[in-house]
Each structure stands twice: as C-alpha cells, then as structure tokens.
C-alpha cells in the first residue's frame, strides 16, 4: 500500500468509525481546525503560551498560500486529509522481523545495521532489557553530569518552560513560511538541547539520537541552544530507511549559538523515496535555521539527503555576531523520480563574518536536483567573506541538475566567490574502472564517493562510513 493510499484510507476511516473511537486510539481524525490544535495542546499538557502560539500560527497559516517557486512538481497536498496527532503511537507494532517487508531488511543488511536496531527501526516490539536501552540510560547520566539538557521537546516544555519561552520561535518565527507556520501550529514533538556555558558536550548526540530515532514524528520541532563557549555536535536522522506511513513531513529546526559557541548539526535523511516508477514517497518540507548570535560563534550544517520523493530544504545561518562563521556541506542524491530543491541561506550581518557553502548534487534515473542558495551581505557586514562551490554530477541522460545562486551584496568590502560545475560520469572513467576488473555499479559508486568526499569528511566518523554505504544502496539500479 502506498503512502497516499494509507492517507486516503485514514481519511475514510472517519466515516467508518466515528470521532470518539479514534480518540481512544489516540488518533485525531483527519482535518485541521482550532479544535484540533487545542486538542493536541491539551493532550500534551502544554502551558498557555504554547497553545496561544499554536493558535496564532494556525490563524496566520490560513492567510498564507503554499509556495510554488521551487522547481518541484507534485500533486497538491490535501491538508484536511491528514491526521495531525497520530505520529508515534499510530505505528503498528509488529511481532517479529518476519512481518517486515523483506526489501527493507535486505537494505538493513547491506548497511550493516545491527539486528536489534533493525527491529526498532521497522517497528518490531523489542524486549525491555536489550542493549540500547541501558546504553541510553548511561548516556543520560553522563550528560546530566555536565548539565546538558537533552530531552523530548514536550518534556522540556514542562521541565524548562523558561528556556523554551525564551528561545522557541526566536530563529524561525511562526510567520516564517507556509510549512514552518503549519509546523508551529501542529508540531508533534522533537528534541530540545541545551549546553550550559563553557561545556563541551561529552558525546556526539548522534549516538543517543540514533537509538531514539524511530520515534520521530511527522511535524518535528528541534531547538538547540549553545551557551557561551560551549560545543555540541548533533546528528539527526538515521542511515537506515525508516518505516513511516506519513506522507507529508514539515519539520522545523532552530539553533542558537552564543558567543564563542560551536554547533555542528549533521543530517542523514533517508525517508522512503517512492518506488522506481515514482509512486509514493515522503514529501519533506523542512525549515532549518541557526543564528550565530554572539561573536566568534560557529554553526556548521552537514547534510546527506538521499531519501524522500520531494525534498525542500535550506539549512541557513544568520551570522549576527562579529567574526562568526557559517558552513553548509551538502550531498543530495536523486534517483528514479525523486526531486530535491535544496541549498542554504547565509545572511551576513556582523563584521568579518565568514561562510562556506559546498554543495554536491547527484542525479540519476529521472531524478531532478536543484541547488538554491542565497548569500546576503548586509551593509553592516564589514569584510564579510563567502566561498560557494556547487558541483553536480549526472548519471544517465534522463536526469537533471540545476543551480540557482542568489547573491545580494550591500557592502563593498565583501569578498564573494562562487564556483559551479556540472559533469557526467564520463564513459572514460567507467571504462577505466571496468578495464581493471571493477563492475559498472561498483565503478559508479566509487566515482560518486570520490565526488562526495569533501562533504563526507565533515560527518561524524561512524556515520561517514554508513553514509557511503547508503549512497551505494540508493544508487542501485541507476545504471540502465
């Protein structure tokens, strides 16, 4: 059953089973109105300010139109056919791996995902006493010792309402854009991270996150605050494909870096991309933005995007503090009928601010890959510097790569460089590999790895290896 079918089926259920039964099952029937938002908020025992925020966002959303400037083609989304409170609990628990789609298991094996994680990711019920759970507890103690707060967003709302009220929506306001506004109204859950002054987070938050990754919802909300002089590295997502029955994803991520703080945010996104005929697949409309608030702060985005039927995503940096640094490293792969419109925005406000953009697009099959990036140097940004490099590689002759760089320079002292290239994997390269005994598929994946090397190097070590394998799996069948 495709995702669309599932959504339609869910929509039909409204008439079949009625309103009350669904509430008992913890599913709100499809459709969006103020009652639904109040219900979500009350289910989460949210404080008044958050409910008001949600309602303001919803009312604003009603006045907005879905953006159409991206180079994406998809059938219109029926926002009233979606159930807005269904995410984690709705997933049916399976009894054993035998009930899981064998194709999915095959992929897990190729990626080398351990068995207990396979179970978690595919929604199989797992014993209470298994490794990862205790591992997770150990992590929690370790983090607590350093005063690091890392918890589900809904928990943070109850335990640290002051922090949430201070920072929530401070980088992505509820009026920001159609999808962020929708998220602000209906967000389900997500993560909250707070690193106190001078603390270097003792572990990659990736390790912990990976264990919890299977519980992420459809309208995720993440907020990371790094106090003065603190460091944190956070990895979102998972290299394994996720069993997910929601079609529309609209997440919001906000990062705040104070003076001398460093945030490294890495994403590996591998949602269901649809089948080889372009049927099904996740629509991923994400708003990610960080602000380098204090001087000498740094925010670094690294993303490996290989999943989703539609990707609409521009992780951005507002470089407000003097000498602050923004980085964006991206690998986006589209195969079959996948479409990606992705890039970044670097907004230079402070003096001597510096940004780097490295974007590698890979298109195969009928895939379409767009880089869209804005570099804005404001009047106040004395001696700002930007370097952008956008390279694309095409596999086959039915795919496409497009680059839309926007430059907006309002200070004459700025130095802005942009380089772009598009190339085919050449027949010469392929034949060279084959003549040494390497098969076409292995050759393509080797050439693509080489192409992405500068971005993979930025990923946390343990994920760089998996990201490479993931690329391999995603490229399978791309050679006619």
């Amino acid at each position: 059953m495709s995702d669309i079918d599932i959504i339609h089926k869910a929509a039909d259920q409204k008439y079949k089973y009625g309103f009350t039964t669904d509430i008992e099952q913890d599913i709100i029937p499809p459709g969006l109105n103020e009652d639904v938002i109040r219900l979500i908020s009350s289910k989460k025992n949210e404080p008044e300010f958050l409910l008001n925020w949600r309602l303001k966002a919803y009312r604003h959303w009603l006045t907005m139109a879905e953006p159409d400037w991206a180079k994406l083609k998809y059938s219109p989304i029926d926002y009233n056919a979606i159930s807005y409170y269904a995410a984690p609990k709705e997933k049916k628990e399976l009894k054993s791996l035998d009930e899981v789609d064998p194709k999915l298991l095959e992929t897990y094996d190729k990626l080398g995902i351990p068995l207990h994680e396979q179970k978690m990711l595919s929604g199989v019920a797992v014993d209470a006493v298994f490794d990862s759970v205790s591992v997770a507890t150990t992590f929690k103690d370790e983090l607590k010792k350093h005063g690091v707060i890392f918890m589900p967003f809904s928990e943070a709302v109850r335990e640290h309402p002051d922090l949430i009220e201070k920072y929530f929506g401070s980088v992505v306001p509820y009026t920001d854009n159609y999808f962020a506004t929708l998220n602000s109204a209906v967000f389900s859950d997500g993560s909250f991270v707070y690193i106190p002054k001078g603390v270097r987070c003792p572990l990659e938050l990736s390790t912990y996150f990976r264990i919890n990754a299977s519980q992420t919802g459809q309208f995720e909300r993440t907020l990371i605050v790094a106090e003065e002089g603190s460091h944190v590295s956070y990895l979102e997502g998972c290299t394994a494909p996720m069993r997910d029955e929601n079609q529309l994803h609209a997440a919001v991520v906000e990062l705040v870096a104070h003076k001398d703080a460093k945030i490294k945010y890495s994403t590996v996104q591998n949602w269901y991309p649809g089948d080889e005929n372009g049927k099904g697949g996740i629509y991923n409309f994400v708003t990610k933005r960080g602000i380098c608030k204090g001087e000498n702060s740094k925010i670094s985005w690294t993303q490996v995007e290989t999943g989703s039927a539609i990707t609409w995503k521009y992780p951005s940096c507002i470089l407000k503090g003097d000498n602050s640094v923004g980085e964006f490293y991206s690998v986006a792969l589209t195969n079959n009928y996948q479409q990606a419109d992705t890039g970044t925005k670097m907004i230079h406000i402070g003096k001597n601010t510096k940004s780097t953009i490295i974007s590698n697009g890979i298109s195969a099959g009928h895939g379409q890959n767009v880089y869209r990036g804005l570099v804005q140097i404001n009047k106040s940004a004395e001696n700002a510097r930007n370097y952008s490099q956008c390279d694309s590689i095409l596999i086959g002759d039915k795919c496409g790569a497009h680059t839309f760089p926007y430059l907006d320079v309002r200070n004459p002292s700025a130095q802005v460089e942009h380089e772009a290239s598009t190339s085919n994997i050449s027949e010469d390269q392929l034949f060279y590999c084959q003549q040494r005994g390497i098969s076409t598929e292995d050759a393509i994946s080797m050439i693509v790895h080489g192409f992405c090397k500068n971005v993979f190097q930025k990923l946390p070590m343990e994920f760089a290896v998996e990201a490479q394998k993931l690329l391999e799996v995603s490229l399978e069948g791309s050679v006619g």
Partner: protein
Amino acid sequence: MIEIKDLHVSIEDKEILKGINLSIKPGELHAIMGRNGSGKSTLSNVISGRDGYTITKGSITWYGQDLLKLSPEDRACEGIFMGFQYPVVIPGVNNMYFLKAAYNAQRRYKGEEELDSMDFISLIKTKIKEVKLDESFLQRAVNDGFSGGEKKRNEILQMITLEPKLAILDETDSGLDIDALKIVAEGVNNFRNPQRGFLVITHYQRILNYMDPDRIHVMIDGKIVKSGGRNLALKLEQQGYGWLDEAAAV
C-alpha cells in the same frame, strides 16, 4: 593465448579495421607500429571490450573461448590488461583504494579470497618501488594532478600489481622523457615471463630499443601490411612508413 582472425571493425558505419590477423603466444612480446589513425588504438580498445565499436566480421578467441562475448570487466578478470594512452583522472578516489578494489574484484572473479587492507598495503609498497614512484602517490586521487610520466608509471604499477596474462600497452611511451621511458620499459622487462604475453602499441620505435620484441607488425589503414623481427623497427625508424604505403594500397 589470443587469436585474432580476419577482424573487421566499424565505428558508426566507417570501417576502421579491415581484416586483422594476429596471434600471440605466452611469453611473446609483439609490437604494433603505425601512424596516427591507422587503427592501432581501435584494436586495443576492441580487445579490452570498449563500447562503441561494431565488429562486422571475424573473431577473437582467448584460450579457446569467444572473447567478444565477455564484458570488459570479465576480460580484465580473465587477465587482459590495458595500459591507457591517456589515463583517466578520478577525483576524490584514493589511488590505493582504487587498486585494491580492482585487485580484489579480480580475486573474487577467480574464486580467491580477497586481500585485507594490511596485506594489500605491504604488497603495494613493494610494487611501487619498482616503478620508482613515491609512496605518497598511493594516497592521492587516481591520476589527479599527476604529470604525464607519473600517470604512465602509475599504469605500470597497476599492471605489475594485477599481474595480467596479456598486457596491452597503448602508446604508453608517448609524451615520456627518456628517464620515464626507461622506467616504463624496465617495468615491462622485469615483468616478462614465459606465461605472459605483451602487445605494445607505439608510434615510435624508440621504446623498442629498451625492450626485446619477438615480432613487429606494421599497421596501415586498418591492415597489418608487414610483419617481421627487430630489424623491421629499425628500418621504419630510418625510412619511415612511406615504402609500405604501396603494399597497403594493394
């Protein structure tokens, strides 16, 4: 080992090879000489299985089996190696990683166990000394930023590592200074043995001064017009190809 019979090859309806006959036995070194455009490179490309050529007539057999049915990678695994005239750059792909992938692909094909990284490193470190390349070349991207001579030595490194049965060297000598030429020739000479065949394709007889060819063939306009021993190369060096043109026209 390889038997080419009455081979006719076209590229987009234009006939390039017009009936080639050539047989190489284990241990032999054959050289094909000829001007640019005579079809020398087409022959090496067809043997190694490159796309874009139509075989209109004739056959190539490899130890009795039909070579033309095999994919390029299978031919490589069967022991056919081609040293490229213009070695290709593969950005971002570590030279040693590339060679190890090739080496292990060939071992897998033969049903042999793959070599792990440690074993491969010690193997490649002895090999790279033979072609007088610095070990740092192993960590660089394949042919990326290599000089002409370094690229060719890297080809020889690949050859002596993969240990093919038949090595085709397509204009490996072109663009080399005399020192690089000697290193390449030495690499080939050390690599010769009674089981291994060579097909050296060249424009100039210069490289043949450093090798000991068993047979020299002259190719003009898609045909082998003259075959002979060492002396033929010397005669070509002195008199050029002109005196053979008549033979080709017949």
